[in-house]
């Protein structure tokens, strides 16, 4: 596929290193039976890890009484959510949302 040159750059050796990493992961991927066996063993380790993490988290969080947020930015900073659970239809709709650009465009062209 033809490519126009772009000003995007990557770290030295990025493509070679990533290709090696992908091959390594792809060619060493476990088989289905291995995955099933691994998941049974991993369930206990996972549960133990979760319990330990919760205990440590509660130790630090419970004694503190944070002040109530007054701004959205404050709430945003405090939320532990790292990924918004938009479903496929919602994200496709969001992709068509012109509002952000139109606002900026009107501000610049009306001035």
């Amino acid at each position, binding site marked *: *596929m*033809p*490519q*126009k040159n*772009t*000003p*995007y*750059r*990557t*770290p030295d050796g*990025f*493509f070679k290193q*990533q*290709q090696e*990493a*992908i*091959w390594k*992961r*792809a*060619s060493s*991927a476990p088989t289905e039976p291995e995955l099933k066996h691994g998941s049974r063993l991993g369930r206990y380790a996972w549960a133990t890890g979760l319990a330990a993490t919760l205990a440590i988290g509660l130790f630090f969080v419970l004694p503190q009484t944070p002040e109530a947020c007054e701004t959205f930015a404050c709430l945003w900073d405090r939320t532990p*959510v*790292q*990924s*918004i*659970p*938009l479903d*496929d239809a919602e*994200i*496709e709709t*969001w*992709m*068509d*949302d*012109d509002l*952000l*650009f139109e606002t*900026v*465009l009107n501000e*610049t*062209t009306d001035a």
Partner: protein
Amino acid sequence: MHGTPPQPDWLEDLVHATGLKREQAFAAMMGAWHVPIYSFLRSMLNEHDDAADATQETFLQVFRSIDTFRGEAKFSTWLYTIARRKGLDALRSRKQLALRHADASDWEARLEADHFFDGDEAQRKLYAALQLLPARQREVFTLRYFQEMAYADIAELTGTSEGAAKASYFHAKNKVQAHLTSSTD
């Protein structure tokens, strides 16, 4: 009657071969598609780290599901469909959503400070304008302008009609031109 589209030479080996032959087929695929897919995802996500992660996930997914590829579509369209899905997954992230609130001057400043962006002032303005486009238009503009993809393929990839893809491209182009004109006045 529609024939099956021509497929790359190495595809057969990637699906059926083992050992060195499969590794060579993998290397041939990466040689052909690694840079285009990274560029597509970089335009979509802007940040090198996010694009690198999504690129890796794309090719791992290709490798895992290559035996489900039936050859009814072009390999490139199937590959871009997976890349697009990985890109959309990344767009849901908190970091990417926060980026959407930046304005043109924020974007220009970000690009100027970005070690992995090597553009001059005009390119910074162009790429900042691109970041302000709605995601769909940015995606179509990137596929058409930078990747020189046919409208029919863009339509298949994004699940729209060829006419809608053309309209998105021309809206995007007009908006970018308007923004560049206004910012140089």
